[in-house]
């Protein structure tokens, strides 16, 4: 039985369950696209939840999701930095995301499948600062204000990063999976 008491501020478990726990899936999805490695992203989420429990007493209420995603982002960045400092070959991003290489697909493979794989690759290949904004907006459906909170940049910066991210993906799409028409 682990009880967090005097060394860490007391935690209102019911409040944590109501305000933070429902965003566990969001945390997982965001972590996955941030670190692009399923194994590491599980570690990131677990560590982030532990930090969330530790810091929860300092959560003043408000947007629990943005608060948790901010912790996930910090955790991911520190764990990525930690891993980079280790002499370990970075795994191939596309392979780590379990994205099938379309070149190895049979000719008759559904073009939709190819399209999805290419799209996942293109998103995974975006620069970190563009990818995180786009994932938060399109997959997690956060508002500009929430994204600006999570990422820690002004809303104007969020807007221009979203624009650049989208243009990059639309460009990749035009070059890769041409419209079937």
């Amino acid at each position, binding site marked *: *039985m682990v009880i967090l008491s005097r060394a860490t501020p007391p935690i209102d*478990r019911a409040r*944590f369950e109501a305000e933070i*726990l429902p965003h*566990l899936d969001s945390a997982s999805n965001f972590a996955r696209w941030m670190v692009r490695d399923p194994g590491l992203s599980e570690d990131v989420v*677990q560590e982030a939840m532990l930090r969330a*429990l530790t810091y929860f007493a300092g959560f003043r209420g408000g947007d629990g999701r943005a608060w948790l995603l901010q912790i996930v982002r910090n955790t991911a960045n520190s764990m990525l930095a930690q891993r980079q400092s280790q002499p370990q070959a970075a795994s191939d991003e596309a392979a780590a995301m379990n994205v099938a290489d379309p070149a190895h697909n049979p000719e008759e493979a559904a073009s939709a499948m190819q399209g999805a794989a290419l*799209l996942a690759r293109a998103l995974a290949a975006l620069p970190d600062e563009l990818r995180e904004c786009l994932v938060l907006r399109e997959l997690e459906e956060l508002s500009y204000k929430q994204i600006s909170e999570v990422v820690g940049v002004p809303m104007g910066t969020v807007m221009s990063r979203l624009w650049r991210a989208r243009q990059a993906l639309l460009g990749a799409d035009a070059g890769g999976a041409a419209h079937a028409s």
Partner: protein
Amino acid sequence: MQADPCEEFHLLIQADLDGELTANEAAEVAVHVAGCPACAKIQADLLGLRLRLRAELPRAAAGAATRAAVAKRLAAMPARPRTGARRSSWASFAGGIALAASILLLVPMVDLDGTGRELVAAHVQALQSGNPVAVESSDRHTVKPWFDGKIRFSPAVKDLTQDGFPLIGGRTEVIGGQTVAVMVYRRRGHLIDVFAWPSGTLETWRAALGLDGTGTRDGFATATWVSDGITYHAVSSTDGAEMVHFLGHWWEP
């Protein structure tokens, strides 16, 4: 994209798509887009990209292992906020769980404070002796069997090397006339002594009521928990946050 006279509209079209415009602003965008094929294409492209992203990249849900780890940590927490030190917790519990508390009063009291002092003293003494372990090994399959025949219970010996808390060995101590097991872990420059003994009734109740936990004694970080009928008490010169991390990893499946 060549010099586009509508460039100022781009971020507005995007903001409209993202639901960030007021009704008036959105209407302005709609009027412009209706008369501008280039902007209409941009709007259609952005919308098409959104539909593809949401349809083709399903969100990854939390894994079963993560879910289990989080649930376990949460389940081990008190269901309500607790304030102040141990003594005031007793008072705050009186209303909600009077029945449990009254049963607790029937349990013979043991000198928990005295035990805590003894454990810190044992930790300090082991450090001073320069021999914090009697069996030195990072292999739990070496440390655990070493206890056989020395104690009459079987404490959990965990390999937490991956988590940054390498096991360095074990020893026994006599605390309150009872031989207890000590598993010794390292965290950076600090040693963490985890004392273990079979839980008494009182300890089981205290754990069930959430009266134990992490804390400090004489500047040392401490933690108390009960698992499978064994009471564990950790003492270390590391800080409280590290102790919380240690506990989190100890409980991982």
